[in-house]
């Protein structure tokens, strides 16, 4: 029973009084800072990283893990309450979560996010403990052709993110793809659509784009009808889930956990896709597809669980190979390096207390988060009753700080303002920003993997169908395309028959 011994070792480390304390402090600070609009996990961890320098390595990593979960949950909180996703995974949460908040169900949305995340986090942690090394090797099987096919699937599925017109959704995805083209081409170095601005050589910043499209445009729209909005806020009733709501979230949470756990392992953007994938699936199989985009609780439960499971399993490449799969993991590795630990394939055998301590602390951290946040939900919801003319200047100020802190660059703040105006115009045209954001995120990866696959195959396009994983993904994409197009085809036929 190696696993039990290892877990016992892990928990004996994670549950020492000192480490529980650091885990708690980390989760608390992470939540408090992450809840400020625009400060997602990356910014929060970067900001709080120096706090951990003086701690012993295990405590430092445990505290950082706490900060990570806290910040991530804080990000979902702002997405739900004020429609401000601070990172790509909470974009999806904002769609239905914020609509729930508008209907006075902010408390239920927050509770769903907390409970779903806890469940998914627990399962993914167990998965990590059981299968980390083989899963890491599996992830390495994913080469450029597989990633390309996965991105194609993601792009097609993203059409389902929109609750309105399919044509407008496709237009938004394409606009997002175009925005994603800006920046230096990684294969030739040629600057594309940079307008001779050095700041654009890495393209538009995601945080600036997302905060502008969602947050700033939402503020402008709210200022249009403040009267109406305060009425919405006044309706806040029960903070907890009703029995019926609870029943409705069970299946989405389970599905989200499975999707997130697997996509999270892939270092090349898999974790980011997991919340989108979960949302698309929930919307397709839901008994209440009409509610999606108008406050469907499944649209919060599934993606939040997927997101958290993915966040957990994205530790696998870092812990087993020493290679970060996303900026958050890069920060964690930085913290380890400062602690004098070089992450690599040998961490499991050389520092078992660290490896298993961190795994156990993930579970402790998730548990802490639920303990911490269920009581806080009432407080967050009460924030909504703050008069809007007091709240919106504060939100704008925090958005600016948050965006600035990503690269310490004022350019990003202007970018956010610009996209705020664009986002407002799009809202007026009944176009939804979520598909645009997904296009923006997926576009550059789609290109990167396509060209790398072609480069390695020396221009032979058959690699996409001769490699089995890639072929399966492309078939799924084809199936998704049919599913997406079917309703509109049917509608078209129905209309044809009417005449």
């Amino acid at each position, binding site marked *: 029973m190696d696993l039990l011994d290892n877990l016992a070792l892990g928990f004996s480390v994670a549950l020492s009084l000192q480490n529980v304390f650091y885990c708690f402090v980390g989760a608390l600070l992470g939540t408090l800072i992450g809840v400020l609009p625009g400060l997602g996990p990356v910014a929060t961890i970067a900001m709080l990283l120096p706090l951990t320098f003086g701690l012993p390595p295990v405590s430092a990593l445990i505290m950082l893990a706490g900060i990570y979960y806290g910040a991530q949950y804080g990000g979902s909180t702002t997405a739900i309450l004020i429609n401000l996703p601070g990172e790509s995974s909470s974009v999806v949460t904002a769609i239905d979560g914020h609509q729930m908040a508008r209907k006075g169900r902010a408390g239920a949305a927050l509770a769903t996010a907390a409970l779903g995340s806890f469940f998914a986090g627990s399962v993914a942690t167990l998965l990590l403990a059981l299968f980390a090394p083989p899963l890491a090797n599996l992830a390495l099987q994913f080469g450029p052709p597989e990633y390309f096919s996965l991105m194609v699937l993601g792009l097609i599925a993203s059409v389902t993110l929109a609750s309105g017109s399919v044509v407008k959704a496709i237009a938004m995805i394409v606009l997002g793809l175009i925005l994603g083209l800006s920046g230096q081409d990684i294969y030739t170095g040629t600057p594309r659509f940079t307008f001779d601005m050095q700041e654009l050589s890495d393209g538009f910043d995601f945080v600036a784009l997302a905060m502008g499209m969602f947050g700033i445009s939402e503020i402008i729209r709210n200022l249009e009808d403040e009267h109406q909005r305060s009425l919405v806020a006044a309706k806040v009733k029960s903070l907890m889930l009703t029995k019926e709501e609870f029943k409705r979230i069970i299946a989405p949470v389970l599905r989200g956990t499975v999707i997130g756990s697997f996509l999270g392992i892939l270092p090349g953007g898999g974790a980011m896709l997991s919340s989108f994938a979960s949302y698309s699936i929930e919307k397709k199989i839901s008994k209440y597809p009409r509610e999606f985009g108008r406050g469907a609780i499944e649209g919060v439960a599934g993606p939040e669980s997927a997101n958290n499971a993915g966040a957990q399993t994205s530790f696998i490449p870092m812990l087993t190979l020493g290679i970060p799969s996303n900026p958050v993991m890069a920060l964690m590795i930085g913290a380890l390096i400062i602690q004098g630990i070089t992450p690599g394939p040998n961490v499991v055998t050389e520092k078992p207390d660290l490896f298993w301590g961190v795994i156990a602390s993930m579970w402790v951290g998730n548990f802490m988060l639920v303990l911490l946040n269920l009581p806080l939900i009432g407080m967050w919801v009460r924030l909504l009753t703050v008069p809007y003319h007091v709240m919106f200047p504060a939100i704008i100020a925090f958005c600016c700080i948050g965006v600035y802190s990503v690269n310490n660059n004022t350019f990003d703040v202007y970018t956010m303002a610009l996209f705020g105006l664009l986002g407002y115009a799009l809202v007026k045209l009944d176009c939804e920003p979520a598909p645009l954001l997904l296009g923006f995120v997926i576009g550059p990866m789609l290109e990167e993997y396509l060209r790398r696959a072609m*480069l390695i195959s020396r221009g032979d396009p058959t690699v996409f169908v001769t490699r089995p994983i890639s072929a399966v993904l492309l078939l799924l994409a084809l199936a998704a395309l049919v599913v997406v197009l079917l309703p509109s085809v049917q509608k078209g036929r129905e209309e044809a028959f009417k005449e």
Partner: protein
Amino acid sequence: MFRFIASVACALSLLAALPHPPAAAQNFPSRAVTVIVPFAAGGPTDAAGRIIARAMQSLSGEPFVVENVAGAGSTIGAAKVAHTQPDGYTLLLATSSAMVVAPHLYAKITYDGFRSFAPIGLITEAPFILLVPANSRFDSYDALVAYARAHPGQLNYGTPGLGTVQHLGLERLLEASGVKAAHVPYKGTAPSLIGFLGGEVDFIVETPNAAMPLIKGDRARALAVTGPARLPALPDVPTVADLGVKGADMRSWFALMAPRDTPAPVLATLRSLLERSLADPANVKALREAGFEVATMDLPSLHKMMEQEYGQFGQIIKAQNLVIR
């Protein structure tokens, strides 16, 4: 003589704690000094920058604050320092890519290469290690070259990006060995390592801090070291010169830089602070744990090294027509 000036400058900077008429150099530093790290927080360069900043802070008594200004292959941070007030309060943790590569690579760069900066001192220097996957058919550099010669253009090598030191250095090494291979650029070190471990490319070069864990974990095999001497940790791995390839050394280095017109006494104070920081065994240990061996160099040698690399990288970039307009 230098030490004397430096210690005088230090003594003066201690005196500066007393109220004093404003004479910039004498009471330097009298407020927080910003060290710009031109990479995102959390990476290895950032770790080194923070260790140095912490050390200089404790010696000088004034805060040395790390500010991460990432982007555009570290040229945004470098440009920011090049154009700042040359008063010694804004410093750059410079890597070779910003100093000796970027000026040739980017036609529209706003600073004049290493001529825009006054060096304070070298911090660390490391050779690269040429790696193949552990299950690779190549067990020596000669075998790799022989295969590449028999099968022109079939092998792939990965790098963290176009125009990185790894890319240009490998091009030079391959040219010196008389073979060609296809370049597969990735978006940074981590993705390039994942691609390497996934078998997408046949070989890469990486610094010891990234390479050693992979070698120890039996994920990669070292075929050559691109420095002047073998590494103590890898005594059996030959240098490229041992293999008969001349003029193909490549290294990664960091140095602390100030803007060019920084007053000499301020530079002297900073040099002394850096020198004393790097002489402290605690800092040497911290840097080693972060993957960097402290390397110091007198200023003329540093200048010579930079000038030489500046010329070499310029040549490769021109020969390969890599200039980005």
